[in-house]
């Protein structure tokens, strides 16, 4: 059974993948289905949903098309989630591999630095970073990665500590490979799988953190974000609660999809080993 | 009423369509006897022990009958059957003091209060010849040696005065000297409490010191069964003879001559 088929045979993986596929479709099709600036005025303000079929989910406080905002917001969430996860995994894997491979004082120092980054609450750090450098998409990604890299770093280091005792590393050393080259060419690729297993958790966390930052007004002001939509809807919470509720549902479904796919991946590899 | 347990046509497979771990087993266990089940890995001897004790894993399929004419009711683990596992560390909860683990068995079956059960536990720990039972009952498993842990396991197995004690490779994970001590301990306890003993082992020499009867298992079937003396001196089956021959004792002739080394 091919890997993909096996993966999709697990119900969690199938449903998770379905949700993520829908999300990706939303993100990719946004400029096609809703061309133009999603933040422009599209109709009368506070139009309830399901009344005007050219504005299926109604409009917000300023008259913007909620459905268009929802679709364009998917782009931001997906972009931030994937970019932040990639950055965190890359930094973390690098630091963890170097620490585990170098050992001794360098390892100790790097681990204390990792501890420091884990001790400061990640959201506070992101808050401080974004407020200092200024809100933009890249800054938000960097802010999230600033605290998210510690998890992959620890996992990578643990893997490397066990790998570096193995024969093929000793062989590389005998051949005369430079230690840094060994670390990056032999050890790092083999330490990656458990690190990558963290990716679903990191992506989900990144999306939620970005939403929280946008909610507090620290997201990219030029982009539509679900968090920003929730914040906007808060001002009319009594009269039009759906404006805050709907983007939140989108967030829940997205994160749920990621978790399901992640759990499904774990399940399917367990199935392959014949454990379940 | 002269049979404790009777096994009739027992067959066991660990999976519904899997290979048979046991087949066509007919066996009577007499009260007060010491029966050894001997066999190599995969012979089904542990499976028999687990089946008799009702400890087969979920998903295992069992056919045939295990009757208990020697008991007034269906057997209950702890109360009627004491089980000692092969791995001493694996049979004890790592975060609970060993004394409490023995006491909880007494409390579960003898209707004792916690204080009475703790007292009984202390007596049992002394009976299995653990040093300073009063102190050791507060110890945790990781603080004890393998032999000490196994003694605790034995104490827990006999805490509720069961009629049948099953020792499933109870000494196989221990050092040789400790092995001998544990075997001696089991022999003494069984005699003192009048228990029936089912001793599972791969070591026929060890079993022959302990058992009245020996049953030899191979590939899920009984090859031979009879009194120890008879089996050991005049084995009827070739397989039994092979098992006996394979055992190397100190009085056996050396494999290589010590006179001249090979060039």
């Amino acid at each position, binding site marked *: 059974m091919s890997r993909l088929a096996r993966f999709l045979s697990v119900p969690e993986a199938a449903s998770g993948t379905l949700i993520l596929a829908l999300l990706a479709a939303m993100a990719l099709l946004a400029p096609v289905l809703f061309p133009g600036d999603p933040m422009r005025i599209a109709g009368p303000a506070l139009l309830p949903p399901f009344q005007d079929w050219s504005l299926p989910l109604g409009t917000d406080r300023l008259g913007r098309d909620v459905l268009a905002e929802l679709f364009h917001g998917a782009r931001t969430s997906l972009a931030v989630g994937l970019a932040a996860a990639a950055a965190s995994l890359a930094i973390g894997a690098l630091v963890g591999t170097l620490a585990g491979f170098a050992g001794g004082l360098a390892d100790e120092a790097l681990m204390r630095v990792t501890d420091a980054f884990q001790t400061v609450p990640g*959201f*506070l750090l992101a808050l401080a970073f974004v*407020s200092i450098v200024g809100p933009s998409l890249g800054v938000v990604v960097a802010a999230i990665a600033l605290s998210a890299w510690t998890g992959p770093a620890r996992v990578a280091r643990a893997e490397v500590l066990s790998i570096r005792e193995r024969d093929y590393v000793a062989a590389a050393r005998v051949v005369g490979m430079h230690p840094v080259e060994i670390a990056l060419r032999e050890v790092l690729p083999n330490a990656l799988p458990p690190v990558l297993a963290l990716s679903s958790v990191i992506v989900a966390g990144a999306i939620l953190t970005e939403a929280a930052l946008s909610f507090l007004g620290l997201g990219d002001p030029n982009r539509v974000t679900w968090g920003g939509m929730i914040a906007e809807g808060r001002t009319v919470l009594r009269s039009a609660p759906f404006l805050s509720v709907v983007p939140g549902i989108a967030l829940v479904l*997205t994160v749920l999809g990621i978790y399901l796919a992640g759990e499904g991946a774990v399940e399917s590899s367990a199935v392959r080993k014949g454990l379940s | 009423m002269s049979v404790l347990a009777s096994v009739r046509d027992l067959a066991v497979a660990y999976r519904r369509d899997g290979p048979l771990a046991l087949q066509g087993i007919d066996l009577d266990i007499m009260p007060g006897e010491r029966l050894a089940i001997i066999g190599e890995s995969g012979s089904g001897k542990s499976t028999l022990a687990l089946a008799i004790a009702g400890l087969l894993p979920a998903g295992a399929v069992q056919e045939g009958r295990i009757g208990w004419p020697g008991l007034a009711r269906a057997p209950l683990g702890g109360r009627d059957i004491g089980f000692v596992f092969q791995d001493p560390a694996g049979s004890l909860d790592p975060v609970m003091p060993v004394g409490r683990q023995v006491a909880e068995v007494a409390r579960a079956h003898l209707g004792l209060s916690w204080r009475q059960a703790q007292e009984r536990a202390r007596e049992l720990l002394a009976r299995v010849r653990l040093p300073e039972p009063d102190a050791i009952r507060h110890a945790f498993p990781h603080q004890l040696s393998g032999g000490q842990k196994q003694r605790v396991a034995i104490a827990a197995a006999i805490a509720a005065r069961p009629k049948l004690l099953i020792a499933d490779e109870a000494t196989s994970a221990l050092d040789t000297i400790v092995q001998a001590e544990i075997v001696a301990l089991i022999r003494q306890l069984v005699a003192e409490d009048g228990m029936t003993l089912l001793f599972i082992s791969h070591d026929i020499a060890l079993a022959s010191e302990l058992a009245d009867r020996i049953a030899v298992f191979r590939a899920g079937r009984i090859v031979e069964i009879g009194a120890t003396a008879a089996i050991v001196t005049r084995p009827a089956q070739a397989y039994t003879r092979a098992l006996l021959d394979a055992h190397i004792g100190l009085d056996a002739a050396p494999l290589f001559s010590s006179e001249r080394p090979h060039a």
Partner: protein
Amino acid sequence: MTRALVLLRRRLVGSVFVLAIVVVGTFLLLESAPGDAVDAYIAATGGDAGLVEALRQRWGLDQSELTRLANYLWALAHLDLGQSVAFSRPIRDVILERLPNTLLLMGSATALSFGLGSALGIYAGSRPGSFRDRFLSIGSLALYAVPGFWLGLVLTVLFSVKWRWFPIAGIETVASGRTGFARAADIAWHLALPVASLGVIYLALYLRMMRAGMAEIWRMDFIRAARARGIARRRIVLAHVARNALLPLVTMLGLQSAQMLGGSVVIESVFSVPGLGRLAQEAVAQRDTPLLLGIILISAVLVIVINLLVDIAYAALDPRVGASEAGA
């Protein structure tokens, strides 16, 4: 007791290093901000170049970075966190005022999520694969995906606006003059929704951890041995399976404390609870860099203290910890 002390001493030494890195790191981060507290003050209050010069000198912002770092470290040694620009008060005072509210919020949320989460997890894990197990598993996964601030808004809409069971914001009824038990009850009533919003995600987490942990422990040999000894099922579930599965949850308590502190920022914002998290948001809004730095430092100290306490609790619960060092 020896075990705990050996552990504590080693962790304290490590913590000092970590704290030093946090201090220096945060200082450098906040130094890199374009414009400083004086610019923010001038932007808000207005003034000329002369005033800028004078303020810079008064607040010591015209000296070199290294000098300022040294001054800051010296002040820290005297437990002086500097002066808040936004509030014109010592930062230490501002933080100490707000800290108890956050501690109350976090403490309650942790107690709720840990207690209820583990209990439900035990309930689910006592029968792996049963209907209640699967139901709670899926339910908790859905809860785990919910953003806390959004949940806060939804709860507000339902319970405060529509049904008026709970107040919308704040930590207590202003100027009510209540004392003692009545005041405590009033605060509890105000904190109900914030605690729920903050705690739900962790409730799901502990539920899932307990469930998964129990499923794993059920398969272990010593549980089979306990069944062989005829121990009652209920006792096996609680005294053996759950008791062993509890250990990773305790560790998680420490690890999640940093995240929960971060989460309190948004929750306190949504519910206008005057705590440390809300203070951080205000500091950001008013570009009060020294205050932000002070909050980050105090948060780090808080996380370190919580982790130390958790480690001690863990050592008390797991007799195997530190056994080789303390010479058991």
